């Protein structure tokens, strides 16, 4: 019946209908309906998302999606962010660029996360794709400003160059002067993570000839007087990242800036303040009432009353990233001012664990009471109580992302000295749309029972120093049907938990287990049973002898499903079983 109806439409019509289907999940679903739809979908797919670069090869991606224009690639596992993955583990971009260039893919956009990007790959990229428009690098490494120079010089239609928190070797940048005079198409430029000097004159000229520039994030090397000149050229900016905000508030330059900022009526997002003279912040107040996004997480220079005064002007804030020196009191001000708040991230300012600047459960409770639209949270705190979490769960049932991190990873509820099981249990029971969860504090198997029972939409779970036994991990694997990513460190989960439901891992993207109780034998059993999984043992200190006792504990294991078998670029310390 359906077949008859769909034959009525020529392929072009179906393809046109598919144009309206943009989410990756939906397009994937569409491609599974029938052969004809599979074919139409694959020939018309322009945006491809690959959550694990080792799950597939570039050749196969091109073979299936020849019209590919936009690619998103993720490399290293998430725990690589926290120095748990050795330097040369992998996630290398070059082979992808090489393959795409060889097959003349019309690549226009590339978004990368946690990948190793060499200058060679950037150079090849810049020369191979004439229509290249957008490069977004998040938490990547391996390149220098020379690579950026190549992109600037050769990508004639470049619209977006967005560098977020990358480790870039700075060869003291003349890279920005490599943008040709003819380059007038820039919409977004973010180089805040670069450490070195920048050619300020070239930067000003570039901004002056980019009428479409909407987003500009500067690094520390751009002083306040140059900022003023740039803003004169680009009053249309929507997103601004300030580098250096240091000046004598009594000076002409500062007064000029104050006046110029008043012209920038479109700014909705503000970040940076990498160095700051607090008394200069007054200049910013006039634009605060329009801000929807504020990121002060790299601005330890803004604290105390200056910070509070600033926030009191920001009534429309939807997203706030802040340091914990804001304190519980400051969070109280946020709660009473920012009624539209949807996402809050509170980062630690003192990593030595002094705990002086930290926030506690009080701040979080205040926020939950004052901000009804809150759905995304990252909260580093000195302590947390079950009572507070239960209150938060009652106040805010909309959480989709809930990540809590106590500075002492096994800190119990300081009032009752009990584990935080009940608190997190309340969160998962109340927040039915929860997709991402990170736990910390003293936790037993009980919390995992709650997660397995209630967290039906959970896709990503991060666990550290928690649980008593294999039961904990089993509760999660059995209960969370939508689980895609599970990362575990320093928990007493062993082979029994690992091997009870081996088919589960093929429904997931990946599993990371480090400093747990899994043995070499257990991992080998899993690998033999499931050839579609790559079970990697990371053996950086050479502790594991693969020919010997299979009861050896495995320090770090990373397994992921893959269509292309063990990777060929694994370094010597990585063994795929």
């Amino acid at each position: 019946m359906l077949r008859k109806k769909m034959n009525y439409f020529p392929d072009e019509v179906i393809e046109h209908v598919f144009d309206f289907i943009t989410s990756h999940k939906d397009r994937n679903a569409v491609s599974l309906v029938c052969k004809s739809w599979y074919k139409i979908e694959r020939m018309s797919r322009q945006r491809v998302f690959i959550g694990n670069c080792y799950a597939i090869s570039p050749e196969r991606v091109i073979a299936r999606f020849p019209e590919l224009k936009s690619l998103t690639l993720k490399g290293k596992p998430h725990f690589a962010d926290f120095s748990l993955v050795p330097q040369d583990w992998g996630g290398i971009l070059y082979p992808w660029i090489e393959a795409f260039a060889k097959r003349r893919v019309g690549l226009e956009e590339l978004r990368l996360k946690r990948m190793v990007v060499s200058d060679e790959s950037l150079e090849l990229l810049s020369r191979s794709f004439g229509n290249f428009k957008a490069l977004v690098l998040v938490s990547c490494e391996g390149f220098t400003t020379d690579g950026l120079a190549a992109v600037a010089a050769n990508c004639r239609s470049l619209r977006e160059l967005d560098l977020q928190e990358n480790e870039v070797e700075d060869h003291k940048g003349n890279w920005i002067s490599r943008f040709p005079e003819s380059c007038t198409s820039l919409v977004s430029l973010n180089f805040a993570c670069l450490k070195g000097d920048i050619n300020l004159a070239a930067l000003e000229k570039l901004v002056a000839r980019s009428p479409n520039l909407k987003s500009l994030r500067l690094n520390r090397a751009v002083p306040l007087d140059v900022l003023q000149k740039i803003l004169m050229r680009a009053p249309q900016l929507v997103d601004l990242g300030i580098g250096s905000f240091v000046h004598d508030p009594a000076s002409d330059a500062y007064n000029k800036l104050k006046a110029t900022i008043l012209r920038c009526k479109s700014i909705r997002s503000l970040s940076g303040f990498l160095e700051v003279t607090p008394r200069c912040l007054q200049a910013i107040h006039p634009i605060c009432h329009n801000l929807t996004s504020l990121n002060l997480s790299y601005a330890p220079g803004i604290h105390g009353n200056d910070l509070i005064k600033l926030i009191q002007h920001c009534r429309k804030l939807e997203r706030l990233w802040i340091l914990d020196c804001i304190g519980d009191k400051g969070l109280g001000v946020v709660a009473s001012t920012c009624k539209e708040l949807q996402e809050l991230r509170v980062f630690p300012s003192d990593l030595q664990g002094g705990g002086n600047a930290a926030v506690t459960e009080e701040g979080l409770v205040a926020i939950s009471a004052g901000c009804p639209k809150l759905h995304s949270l990252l909260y580093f705190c000195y302590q947390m109580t079950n009572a507070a979490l239960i209150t938060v769960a009652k106040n805010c049932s909309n959480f989709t992302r809930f990540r809590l991190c106590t500075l002492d990873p096994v800190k119990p509820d300081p009032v009752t000295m009990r584990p935080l099981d009940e608190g997190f249990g309340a969160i998962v029971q109340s927040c039915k749309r929860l997709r991402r969860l990170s736990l910390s504090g003293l936790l037993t198997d009980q919390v995992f029972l709650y997660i397995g029972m209630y967290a039906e939409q959970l896709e990503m779970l991060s666990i550290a120093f928690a649980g008593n036994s294999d039961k904990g991990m089993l509760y999660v694997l059995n209960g969370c049907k939508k689980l895609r990513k599970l990362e575990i460190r320093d928990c007493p989960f062993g082979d029994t938990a690992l091997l009870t439901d081996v088919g589960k891992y093929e429904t997931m993207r990946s599993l990371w287990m480090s400093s747990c109780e899994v043995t070499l034998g257990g991992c080998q059993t899993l690998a033999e049973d499931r050839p579609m999984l790559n079970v990697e043992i990371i053996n950086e200190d050479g502790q594991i002898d693969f020919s010997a006792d299979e009861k050896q504990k495995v320090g770090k294991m990373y397994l992921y499903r893959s269509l292309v078998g063990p990777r060929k670029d694994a370094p010597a310390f990585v063994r795929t079983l």
Partner: protein
Amino acid sequence: MYAVAMSNDATADSPESDASITMNFDDTELTLGLPGEGRSPAGGKSYAKRGFIETVDLNLGSSRGNANTHVSNNSESQNGKLPAAKAQVTGWPPVRSFRKKELERSSKLVKVAVDGAPYLRKVDLEIYSSYEELLKTLEKMLTCFTLQGNDRNKVGGRVAMEYVATYEDKEGDWMLVGDVPWKMFMESCNRIRLMKSSEAMGLGTPTNSCISIRKLKQNIKRIQGV
């Protein structure tokens, strides 16, 4: 209201109990083993919950013996306080290394006093890699302050001629900026004073007064940005 799968009554105790993490689950303790096997096999390994303290406190001797949990144990363990609270574990708190490096960036903030200015300033010596960069910033500060001064100072941009950069070192002596290598200066500098050069003429010991004057001139040249 939440289904309790196992009794946790064995857990802590009175509020006065030591904040030690090694809670005793004893009878409710689950162990790893094949179904039907009893507890405490001959191997003797305890599969009880790995407390944080076992991971972190090297003195107890971790049963794992693998070096994955790197710890720098620089804590005092007096009055029953959890030593682990102060020890540092790899990757905890879970903050991106980029962000961590930014936070750990030490800053050496020193006060800068400019003769005649109504208030002091501060500079972070860590962000400079040479005298040149520092003096550029100091010159900017001078411009901020002195351009509000009287006309005499504004003549032909020779403002900077009036000032000499000096600093107080760790021993409390006032020294001329520029004499020692940059790194040494950075480590020994407590604060900076931009002194009116009319006052500075007396600087330098008798033995190297010639050198002092030369350095003075060099100093002034540098401040001018020549």
